[in-house]
C-alpha cells in the first residue's frame, strides 16, 4: 500500500475500430494513479472508467505482466515500451512519468506495414510466427536422443546463444526502426542456432529460409542505425545481425545446401 499521493495524467491514445477503419488520437484523463502502479494497471483504471461511462475500452495486448511473454506492445511518447532501459511496457511504473503540466502521455500501436493494426493498440504480429515456421528450429523429432551431456558446449558459446535466445518476440525492434526492419528479431533466432553445435546441420538452409520469409512479409531493409538494439527490452545485441549477415552471404554463395 503506497503512502504516495495519487497522480493524474492525460492520455492521448490511438483509437482505430478495426484494420480497415481510419484511426485517430483521442484524449482521456486518468486520475488518482498510484506511483507504484504499472503502466498497464493505469490503463486498466482508464478502461474501467470508460466502461462505467458506457464507452468502449481501449484495446491493447498484454498477458504475463512480468516482461517475458512479449505480448505487450505500446509505443509511448515516441518510444517502443516507453521510457526506461531494457523493460517492456508491463514493467514500466507510473513513478517514471511526470504528472506535471497535465501529464500528457501519448500512446500508439507498433507502426509497421508488416504489423497491421487489428484494433486500437493491438497489432497483428503473426509475420514473426511465419518467419519462425520457415526455419527457426532444429529438425529433430521427439525421442531417440543421445544423452544431454554427449555434446559439451563451451560456457561462453552457451551463454552467447542464451543472450540471443532471450528475445521475447515483442516486435519493439521493428517499431523502433525507421525502415521497420525485423533484422534483430530474425538474427537473434538465427544466431542462437548458428552458435550451437545442434544448429550446424541446417545452418545454411535455416538462414536462407528465414531471411527469405522476412522479406516476403514486407519488413524493411537494415541500414545499421542501431535503434533496434537501443530499444530492445531484452538487450539483444546488434552483433547478431552481423553474424546473420555472415551466415547469409556464406550460405548464398555456397552450393552445399
Amino acid at each position, binding site marked *: 500500500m503506497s503512502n504516495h499521493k495519487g497522480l493524474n495524467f492525460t492520455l492521448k491514445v490511438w483509437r482505430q475500430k478495426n484494420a480497415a477503419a481510419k484511426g485517430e488520437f483521442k484524449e482521456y484523463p486518468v486520475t488518482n494513479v498510484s506511483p507504484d502502479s*504499472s503502466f498497464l494497471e*493505469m490503463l*486498466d483504471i482508464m478502461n474501467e472508467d470508460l466502461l462505467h461511462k458506457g464507452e468502449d475500452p481501449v484495446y491493447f495486448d498484454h498477458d504475463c505482466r512480468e516482461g517475458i511473454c512479449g505480448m505487450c506492445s505500446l509505443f509511448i511518447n515516441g518510444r517502443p515500451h516507453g521510457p526506461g532501459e531494457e523493460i517492456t511496457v508491463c514493467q514500466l511504473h507510473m513513478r517514471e512519468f511526470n504528472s506535471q503540466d497535465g501529464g500528457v502521455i501519448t500512446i500508439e500501436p507498433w507502426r509497421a506495414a508488416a504489423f497491421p493494426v487489428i484494433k486500437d493498440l493491438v497489432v*497483428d504480429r503473426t509475420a514473426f*510466427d511465419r518467419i519462425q515456421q520457415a526455419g527457426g528450429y532444429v529438425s*529433430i523429432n521427439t525421442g531417440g536422443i543421445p544423452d544431454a551431456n554427449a555434446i559439451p558446449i563451451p560456457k561462453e558459446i552457451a551463454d552467447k546463444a*542464451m543472450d540471443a535466445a532471450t528475445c521475447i*518476440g515483442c516486435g519493439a525492434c521493428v517499431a523502433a526502426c525507421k525502415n521497420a526492419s525485423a533484422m534483430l528479431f530474425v538474427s537473434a533466432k538465427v544466431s542462437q542456432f548458428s552458435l550451437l553445435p545442434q*544448429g550446424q546441420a541446417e545452418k545454411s538452409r535455416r538462414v536462407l529460409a528465414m531471411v527469405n520469409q522476412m522479406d516476403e512479409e514486407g519488413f524493411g531493409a537494415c541500414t545499421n542505425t542501431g535503434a533496434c538494439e537501443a530499444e530492445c527490452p531484452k538487450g539483444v545485441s546488434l552483433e547478431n545481425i552481423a553474424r546473420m549477415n555472415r551466415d547469409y552471404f556464406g550460405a548464398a554463395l555456397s552450393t552445399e545446401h
Partner: protein
Amino acid sequence: MLDNKIPQGPLAEKWSQHKFNLKLVNPANKRKYDIIVVGTGLAGASAAASFGELGYNVKAFCYQDSARRAHSIAAQGGINAAKNYKNDGDSIFRLFYDTIKGGDYRSREANVYRLAEVSNAIIDQCVAQGVPFAREYGGLLDNRSFGGAQVSRTFYAKGQTGQQLLLGAYSALSRQVKTGKVKLYTRNEMLDLVLVDGKARGIITRNLVTGAIERHSAHSVVLATGGYGNVFFLSTNAMGCNGTAAWRAYKKGAQFGNPCFTQIHPTCIPVHGTQQSKLTLMSESLRNDGRVWVPKTVEMAQKLQKGEIKPTEIAEEDRDYYLERIYPSFGNLVPRDVASRNAKNMCDAGKGVNETGLAVFLDFKTAIERDGEDVIRAKYGNLFQMYEKITDDNPYKTPMMIYPAIHYTMGGLWVDYNLMTTIPGLYAIGECNFSDHGGNRLGASALMQGLADGYFVIPYTIGDYLAQTSYDKVPTSHPAFEEAEKEVRDRINILLTSKGEKTPDEFHKELGLIMWEYCGMARNEEGLKKAKGMIQKLRKEYWAGVKLIGINEEMNLTLEKALRIADFLELGELMVDDALTRTESCGGHFREESQTPEGEALRKDDEFAFVSCWEYQGDDQPAKLNKEELVFENVKLTQRSYK
C-alpha cells in the same frame, strides 16, 4: 467406479510394460486421425508437435496472439531431472520419492514414478532442440538446488528456463506447422466441449478478433489449458489464464480432482495496493542463497513498518532466520507450502516488515559477502533487476521483501494413468490435470510434468485410444455441435444483454478476496461455509446484472472476461466444497482444525488417502464426491519432516 488404469507389476517396470501393452496405430493410418489440442504451453505445444511428427492431423488453439506466449514462458527457476550429473546421490527413485513426499502423499505412485523416469529424456530432448541451458566451464550442463530436495537436480537457463523450454517446444511446433501437420488457431478460445455418443469429438471456439463462433471436429481432444489460479484474481498467472476449458469439460462430465489443492508460492513481490492487477514471482532458486528473516521483536517490526528504521540497521542478533531455526536440515529450502505458511505465521504474529505488515525479508547479504556481488549478479541478475524495477529498491544493498501468492493449482481434471479424463477421448495434460503433485508441487516440477506429458506420455497413450476408434469423422453439422454452439451463443447473449452497474473486473476482484480470505493459506470450517454463501450470492448478483459493452461479432474484451469470470464463480464454489470435505491438512491445503502441536500440517491418512473426484450433477444440484483410493506400496507414509 473410477478406473485409474494403473498397470500391474513392480513400480519400475509399470511404464515399460504398459507401453508394450498399448495398442498402436499403423504409421500410414495416423493421417486418418484428427486431434485437437487446446493450449500451447509446455504441455500443449510439446504434445501438438509430437502428434504432428507421428503423422496425426493436429489443430492447436491458444488465446494469445502467438503460441509462443503461453504462460509456461514465465517459469523462471528450472526443470528437474534425475540425471545425477552432480554425483550427489540422485536417482529416479529419489526424484520419485521427493515428489511423492513433497506432495504430502496425495499423488499416485505410478504416475509420479513415470514422471521421474522420463525426466532425463526431457533434458536430452531440449538440449537437442538447441535450448541454451546453463553450462559449466567444462562444457557440461550445470545444476542448482530447489526446495524439497537435498540434491542438485535442477537444470536452468538463467532465470528464464520456462521461456527457453517453451521456445524449444514452440520451435518444434512451428516445424510441424510448416509441414502442414499442425494447423494453428491463435487468438481463439475454447468455450465448450462437444460430446458425441458420450465421447469427446470436438470443441466450440470463439475467434477473439472477429467474434466468430466456430465448430471443430476431431477424433480426440486434448486439454492443455493450464491452471485456474486466477480464480483468486491476484496470482502469478498471466492475465488471460482461465479455467473455462476445464470447467466446460467438467460440466460435460469430466470429473474434477482435488480442486482445493492450490499452491501458494512463498517468494512473490508483496501487494502494493488496490490498483494491483497481478503478482510477480521471484524464483525459488533465490532461496539457494537468500536467507529469510524477520526481526525478533514486534516492536522492531513496527518500526520497520513505519519506516523509522532500515532493515540494514538491524543487528544480526536481532534477526530471526526462522526457516533455518525451525527446519535446520532444509533451512531456507523447505518446500513451498511450509515456507509460505511460516511467512504467514510471522506476519500474523505482527513481525511483517513492510508498510502493510505483510512481507518478510529475503536477504542476500551473507551470500554477497561470501561469494561477491559479481557471482550473485551472474546467478540472479535478471531477477534482481526485475525486483528493482517493480519496487524501486536495490536488492544488492537492502534485503528483498517477499510475501506468498497464489501460483499454481495442483488440482485439475481427473485423469487415469493414460491421462484420459472420465470422458472417453478427452485428455488433460500439464497443469490442467490433477495427476502428479498431490497436495503440494515441488519447485521445477511443473516444467518437468508439462513436457513429460506432452513429449513422452500422451503420444503413446493417445494411440491406444485412437487404435480403437473408427476413422469416420463426425461432421460439424451433427446435432451435438448444433446444440453445443447454441448453448455457447445463449450464454453470450445473456451476458451481452445483461444490465448491471458492476464491471466483470469488479466481480472478479470480489471473488478473489473471498477465495484468498477463506480458501487461501489457512482454511477452517466456519470460514469456508461463509465463503460458500458469499460466492453463491455473488454469482446470483452476477447473472442478475453485469456491465458489458459491444457485440459478439467484434473484438470484445468485456465479453471475454465475463465468460471466464462466470466459470470462476462456479469453480470457486467447488474449491470451497472440496476444502470443506477434506478435514485434514496436507500440503498447501491447511485446515486449521488439523495441525500438529508445532503447527505443522497434520494429515489423516486413515480417512483421506484418496483423490477427491467431483462429478457434476446439474446447476441446481450439489456435485457428487467420488473417491479414488491412493495405494502406497513403495513409500512409507510418514508425517513430513524437514527439520
